[in-house]
């Protein structure tokens, strides 16, 4: 099993996680994914990549360090993103009842292993 698949396995095992992807942030393209039916990986990668890029530029504009973790909360769940090395971002799409604390811990640790 590759490192990327191991990372995705760890994240998708967290209760409430509907899918996880590794994306290339600058291009907004999927590198690897494990998604439940109904989760559009292409859209998640493109839009999350765009969001991450804008937030990083915003932080730089405010003379702050780039964010390590992003939590976008909606009515029906959340999108979580942990920034890894080499422009890679680990993204998780989670339901409203997901264990967000555990998902955050797993994602921060897993994202640091991406290379």
């Amino acid at each position, binding site marked *: 099993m590759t490192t990327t698949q191991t990372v995705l396995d760890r994240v998708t095992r967290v209760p409430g996680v509907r899918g996880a992807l590794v*994306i290339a942030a600058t*291009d907004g393209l999927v590198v690897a994914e494990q998604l439940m039916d109904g989760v559009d990986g292409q859209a998640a990668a493109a839009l999350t990549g*765009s969001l991450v890029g804008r937030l990083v530029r915003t932080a730089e504009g405010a003379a702050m360090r780039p964010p390590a973790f992003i939590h976008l909360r909606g009515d029906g769940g959340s999108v979580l993103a942990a920034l890894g090395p080499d422009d890679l971002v680990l993204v998780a799409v989670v339901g409203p009842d997901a264990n967000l604390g555990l998902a955050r811990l797993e994602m921060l640790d897993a994202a640091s292993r991406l290379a």
Partner: protein
Amino acid sequence: MKALEPWVVGPLETFLAESAARLTLLMTTSGQVVAQHGFSRSLDVMTAAALGAGIVASTEELARLMGAARFEALVHNGQRQSCMLAAFATPRGRWIGLVVFGPETSVGIVRLFFDQMVQQLAVVAPREQAQPPMLAENFETELNASLKALFGR
């Protein structure tokens, strides 16, 4: 943005707003321009349309030689701007989209909203018979008429 077919305007405007593309050209596989955004000179449109149609024809032949289905899209990544070329089916025949975009957007965003535009075009296209292929003897007349409509000269 200018379009020869009014029903193209809505989906194309949505695509331009969402994707932040700098230049967009929609054309038939024979290089006849259907709509354009961002081009200021008719000569540039003529050149881009001819080159785009030629590239798509070449890649489709390459795919055939490789025993593959058609390529979905061809993306050229540049340092200052990038270019995506994709052929797609419409109720009015097979068309080509040429999109030039910069670092303010991404290839993922452009592809996502391009695919959505293709779906919207399929929905709003008038249910008429596909246009017949362009005949060589009519090509220049049709081309000049299209450019006049797009650029007003």
